[in-house]
């Protein structure tokens, strides 16, 4: 029995290496599905495969009665924390396998990813939906690299991973360290991949914006060097990515940090305080000037900048020491 399994695995690995990547039927699954040892509902169950799992090889399809089955090699998690995986083979209903041979396969997977992302955002949504969405989006890029959805798919996959890790990092005690080098950074491998594969795109701009998170202080502890450095980082981003959808937000964040510095310097450091006030006003004016008014999603930045300028002019505090950070 063991020998037969070994022989099967060997055959698969040989087959996988011989068949060129572009000829292999590869893909993913769009519904959580039970895997069976053979194409029979009464056969032994192997595992549950969740949405977006990598199916590096569809070996065969067969019709038994009215049901079509697919014999697939699938990669499942062994230990999610340790990020160890294993490959298993088994039979699944064919209709849930979306492969490179499926017409509009990229669109179907992307649609399922949007659906999962939506589930993840809902209170009481499906458990693991965020991870499903992340895997599904990645598959669009992975198996349809020339699809018009590939860039968006890779970016969304990277962003979901980033947000999940960010939430995780925030729970650790080191997240409050002032020096960002003293805490575990969020893994930026996928963000770098977005920038490498889709340079000079909206996605590369968005990835670069996310990566600023790793350079922010965990806590300012009342010291001016953090908001000074962070303001510089955001302003630099805005200058280097003038077409980014995040320009107004970056400039606002830079302005808001300068406004915080006005309070932190106070009357004792009048020169620095005035310099920060002037800088904050200049940056906020730039936000107001650059904010698009037509797009309902971007309508917010101009009023926020106006409110910040008003607060600076009237001497209204904008910064309350931790945890009220923006």
């Amino acid at each position: 029995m063991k020998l037969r399994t070994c022989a099967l695995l060997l055959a698969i690995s040989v087959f996988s290496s011989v068949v060129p990547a572009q000829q292999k039927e590869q893909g993913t699954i769009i519904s959580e599905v039970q895997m069976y040892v053979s194409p029979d509902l009464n056969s032994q169950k192997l595992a549950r495969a969740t949405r977006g799992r990598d199916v590096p090889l569809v070996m065969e399809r067969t019709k038994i009665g009215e049901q079509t089955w697919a014999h697939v090699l699938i990669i499942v998690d062994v230990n999610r924390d340790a990020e160890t995986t294993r490959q298993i083979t088994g039979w699944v209903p064919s209709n849930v396998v979306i492969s490179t041979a499926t017409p509009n396969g990229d669109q179907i997977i992307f649609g399922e990813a949007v659906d999962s992302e939506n589930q993840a955002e809902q209170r009481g949504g499906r458990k693991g939906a965020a991870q499903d969405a992340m895997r599904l989006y990645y598959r669009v890029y992975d198996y349809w690299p020339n699809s018009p959805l590939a860039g968006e798919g890779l970016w969304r996959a990277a962003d979901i991973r980033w947000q999940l890790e960010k939430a995780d990092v925030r729970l650790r005690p080191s997240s409050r360290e002032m020096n960002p080098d003293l805490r575990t950074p969020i893994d930026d491998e996928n963000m770098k991949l977005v920038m490498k594969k889709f340079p000079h795109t909206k996605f590369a701009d968005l990835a670069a914006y996310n990566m600023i998170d790793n350079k922010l202080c965990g806590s300012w502890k009342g010291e001016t060097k953090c908001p000074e450095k962070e303001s510089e980082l955001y302003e630099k981003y805005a200058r280097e990515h003038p077409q980014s959808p995040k320009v107004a937000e970056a400039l606002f964040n830079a302005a808001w940090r300068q406004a915080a510095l006005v309070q932190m310097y106070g009357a004792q450091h009048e020169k620095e305080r005035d310099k920060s006030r002037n800088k904050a006003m200049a940056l906020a004016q730039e936000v107001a000037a650059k904010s698009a008014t037509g797009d309902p999603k971007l309508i917010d930045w101009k009023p926020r900048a106006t409110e910040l300028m008003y607060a600076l002019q009237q001497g209204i505090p904008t910064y309350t020491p931790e945890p009220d950070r923006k």
Partner: protein
Amino acid sequence: MVRHWKKIELLLLFALATAALFAAEAEHATLIREEALSISAGANAQKTAQVSRGSALTILERSQAEGQPWVKISMAADQQAQISREVTGWLPGKAVVTAATASGDEIIFGQAVDSERQAEERGGRKGAADDAWRLYSRVPELFPGSPLAAEAMWRAADIRWQLSKTDFVRSGKPMEEKYLREVIAKYPQSRQAELAAYDLLEGQLCQEWRGLAECPIKESALYEQYAHEHPQSPKVAEALYNAAWRQAALTDIYRINNDRSKSDAARQNGIALARQIQSQQQDQDWKMRATDLIYKLEKKIPVYGVDVVDSGETK
């Protein structure tokens, strides 16, 4: 006797005219930071209450103390109640925004956006959602001609709707439709009115389907009707998708009940609705979701009431 009545009438008229004049001239305002209400102007005066962001204020008097402007205000002690006792006191003038404040609409709207973001953040300021709707509400009140007025009124109504939904789930307290209806009445045919009408559909949805066909039939019809009545709404694609998804669910419900002809009819309806999204809508996400749903319907993959697909086929 007649003369006596005439005198009373005259006095009454005079009182009404004075009240109307006062109402017309009263300066209304709001607050963009939480402040303490003092019994007199000055930082060291005794504090009587905290005044929240976005509170509706009427300015009674202005003064200077310690080189800072102060305003005497009156306000309802309970800002949400229909009838409330009035409180008066002094507030620092710098955080008070009136209809006369330059760019006051943007300043209030900006603080409302900030509060809304705080409310969405984990560990954000307590009461920030209430601050946000109050602030948004003040924009159309103080600046009815502002280009931000419709958006602000809609956002205030939407936040209140979302909060009342949470209350409804927790305590069964009926959801208050009044504020959304006011948006529709005040800004008919606007984007904001379309969004308000979409929110109102939620009040007509079943709490639970219990595996019966009645609810998805009714809900699918509601969403389809919305899409046809509001063709310019930003929610058209979502409404059509919701209608299509309910038809897909009906496909499964009828299949479980062994009603094959109704199941097939629901499948065809679902596909037709999803195709409308593909052909008529621009939004990429909804188009892709429609493509995914059409695939599932064509391949008979169940969408309703299944955690794990066992057989993968609905026959």
